[in-house]
């Protein structure tokens, strides 16, 4: 399969502009500046590019929500917070092909009429930040950023904003608050950022991978983009495989690719000769799949949904049969309790409570009523808060307890 996002990853010094250009970097700009902005949006719409951050929302459609002639500046904000556990794809793009991202930023900004773009990078990504900063400086020097890019008449400034280490700042409106210098609290919606976003102005927020997918679409067109993937989930996606496999890492695969092939062929199967027990397919918040699901599920939005889970961010966490699922859920609950921003009552209190119950069960103090209690906490949090952080713990609680009921029952009845 043709590599689109990762083609330069193995090239020496792929992060440098001259190497990137030698590999065809920035070639899409010539085509881009011959198109009208609406044509760019339409092309991305027709290509069927879906947001790679987790929700899978159609990118071109999102761009078209920017109001025309609002009289306000428009911003593109690139979400490089990559905070969902199990996800490490954007980091590789930032480190190994930052110019691909910059090329995508230019296209996206041109399409939506933005002349300023912010890249929000999580604080822990210091090295990726340095790589991107160096790339941005190279691009400015080469006339690829700044005033009148390649004599197109189009101006663009790109700034990096570093986060300070909060999961919630990957949520797009908390991210905006953070750039504005405020506490990372998700905003009430509506209004949506496309109308009232950064500094109160129309703003598009896209994931790094989404933006990095755009140059290919501009350069090669809709047909070429749709040549792989499925009808509803076209193109390729990065899958970051971690956990108990022989070869963990980033794998670019067409959407619709069988998860089983990814784990057992590409990643070399389960390490240490163990058996597959479960897979978290799209970052820690997505509902878990068991070994049976893995037999049939495909890596696209629809197949994942049919199996009761989500494609999410593409963070595939593989668990072998030595994994204690109660422990795994307890680990997640502690994470979400720690990362809940504290704004909405159900999430603030519910995540912490669930973590305490699971910790108590793990310490051998489980009670028969605990399972019902955990379920009701998950029910009472999900869908009742400003953002979906509460749902991000509810989904694992429901799915782990459903798929691995026996293990949870054993902890809930420690004396039996």
């Amino acid at each position, binding site marked *: 399969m043709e590599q689109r996002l990762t083609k330069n990853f193995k090239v020496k010094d792929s992060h440098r502009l001259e190497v990137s250009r030698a590999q065809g970097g920035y070639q899409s700009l010539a085509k881009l500046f011959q198109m009208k902005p609406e044509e760019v949006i339409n092309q991305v719409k027709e290509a069927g590019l879906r947001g790679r951050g987790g929700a899978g929302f159609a990118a071109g459609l999102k761009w078209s929500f920017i109001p025309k002639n609002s009289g306000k500046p428009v911003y593109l904000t690139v979400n490089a917070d990559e905070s969902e556990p199990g996800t490490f794809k954007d980091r590789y793009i930032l480190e190994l092909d930052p110019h691909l991202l910059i090329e995508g930023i230019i296209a996206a900004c041109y399409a939506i009429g933005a002349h300023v773009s912010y890249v929000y990078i999580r604080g822990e990504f210091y090295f990726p930040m340095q790589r991107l900063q160096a790339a941005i400086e190279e691009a400015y020097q080469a006339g690829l950023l700044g005033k009148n890019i390649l004599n197109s008449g189009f101006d663009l400034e790109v700034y990096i904003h570093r986060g300070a280490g*909060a999961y919630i700042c990957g949520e797009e409106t908390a991210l905006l608050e953070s750039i504005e210098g405020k506490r990372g609290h998700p905003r009430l919606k509506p209004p949506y950022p496309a109308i009232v976003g950064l500094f109160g102005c129309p703003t598009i927020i896209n994931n790094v991978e989404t933006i990095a997918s755009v140059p290919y679409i501009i350069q090669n067109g809709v047909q070429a983009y749709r040549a792989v993937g499925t009808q509803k989930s076209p193109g390729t996606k990065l899958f970051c495989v971690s956990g108990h496999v022989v070869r963990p890492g980033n794998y670019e695969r067409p959407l619709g690719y069988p998860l089983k092939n990814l784990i057992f062929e590409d990643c070399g199967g389960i390490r240490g000769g163990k058996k597959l027990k479960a897979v978290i397919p799209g970052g820690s918040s997505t509902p878990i799949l068991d070994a049976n699901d893995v037999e049939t599920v495909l890596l696209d939005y629809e197949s994942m949904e049919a199996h009761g889970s989500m494609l999410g961010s593409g963070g595939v966490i593989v668990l072998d049969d030595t994994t204690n699922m109660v422990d795994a859920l307890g680990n997640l609950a502690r994470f979400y309790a720690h990362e809940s921003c504290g704004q909405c009552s159900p999430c*603030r209190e519910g995540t912490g409570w669930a973590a305490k119950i699971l910790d108590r069960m793990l310490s051998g103090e489980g009670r028969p009523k605990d399972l019902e209690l955990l379920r009701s906490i998950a029910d009472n949090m999900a869908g009742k808060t400003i953002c979906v952080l509460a749902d991000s713990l509810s989904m694992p609680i429901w799915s782990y307890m459903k798929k691995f009921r026996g293990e949870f029952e054993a902890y809930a009845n420690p004396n039996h």
Partner: protein
Amino acid sequence: MPTLTIDGIQVTVEPGTTLIEAAKQVGKSVPHFCYHKKLSIAGNCRMCLVEVEKMNKPVVSCQVTAAEGMVVKTDSEKVKNLRKNVLEFILINHPIDCPVCDQAGECKLQEYYMDHSIADSQMTEAKVHKPKRVDLGPLVVLDDERCVLCSRCIRFCDEITKTGELCFVNRGDHQTLTTFPGMKLDNLYSLNTVDICPVGALTNKDFRFACRVWFLKETPSICTGCATGCNITINHYDDKIYRYLPRENEAVNQCWLCDEGRLSYKFVNDSSRLLRPKAKTNGQASFVAPTVAMEVLVSQVEKTKPQDIVLVGSALESNENNLALKKLADLLGVTHLYYSARIVPNPSHDDFLIKADKNPNRAGVEKLGFKPLLGAAPIHSKVCIILGGLSEAEQKALQPKASGHWVMLASNEGPDTQAADLIFPTATFAEQEGTFTNFQGRVQPFAKAFEPKGDTRPASQWIEELAVRLGFCHCEASQLLRSGSG
């Protein structure tokens, strides 16, 4: 103008009306903590969730606006369950220390729990502990464990006073309210945060531990702190004022009250209150019976020509008391009518509620024809009847008084009353009804909170008695004295 149905009742509302406000219009009160109509929408407590037909998730009624044809349920079983569940979350880490909490009895959390939950806690693990007795500023104390993190106080300081002292720190169930480093909650309106705190997290240092709220009686009144005339409720018990709370009046104070005005009640409870008439004999003041004091006054007035009498009204006293003095002037034919006013050095003032004029009724007393005492030419008099108090400068304006006889109708003893030959103890505004005219010219009534103590009575009653004793028939005096507020 969308028309929607709320709990089976159709209502048409202004475009942009939120569901929680639309529900109010049909008499439905949706429980809430974070929502406050004067503050921006936070939508964080999730207590106001309601059910809307054709929407698959419960919606926050403080944020979602009414749309044509919406069918809203605010009290279905599903909604009641939602509330119960949110309350359970809010209560798991709450200290539930109602017996020692000042807010008990007026606590939204307590009320909603009684209305919607009444369930034992299902949490057996240790609660999260947070800072207690945090000194936020000169007037406000915080108990972080009681805080439901609604952010009302933060938004108040950001949006109303624009002083921005408060913020949240930490995350999740360790999130706490605090001040920014190096800052104190020290603005002119800080005690409003205590009013809008739905629970017992923020307490008023002046009021905390003073009285359980269920003992307090409520009387609608007007703050006497300045010329704004903020509408207040006096909370009192056993003839003592415990606190003022702002009373809503969109045209005057919205729903706020400044700290200075809020704490201006203390003179009413003060030990300096005059409870019995005093008369000076040979320079020595002593308590006398009201009848004796009145006889002295009557004889003084009877033997003095009207042109030797000066009457001094007060910008601190009600229209009614000043009017009584004005009518007495008309009966006697006195033309020297002045008024005293409270002047403080470097008075606080802003462009919101606080006026530099610290008198609740200057507009009223001026409308009755009284002239300011300060700035008037030196006044010679044989008898001077003074309503309220006098400042040092005003005392000087009334000089020389060598041959004069000073009669004061005052509520509290002070440097000015030392100079008086005769003092009648008067009721404060809390012990009588009446009106003040604020700087806008708005005549605002206040009610009697409790009965005057001792021999005190409203100044108008002393003046009326004087008129009767001077030979004006009772009905004439009454009629004159009570014929409206001018």
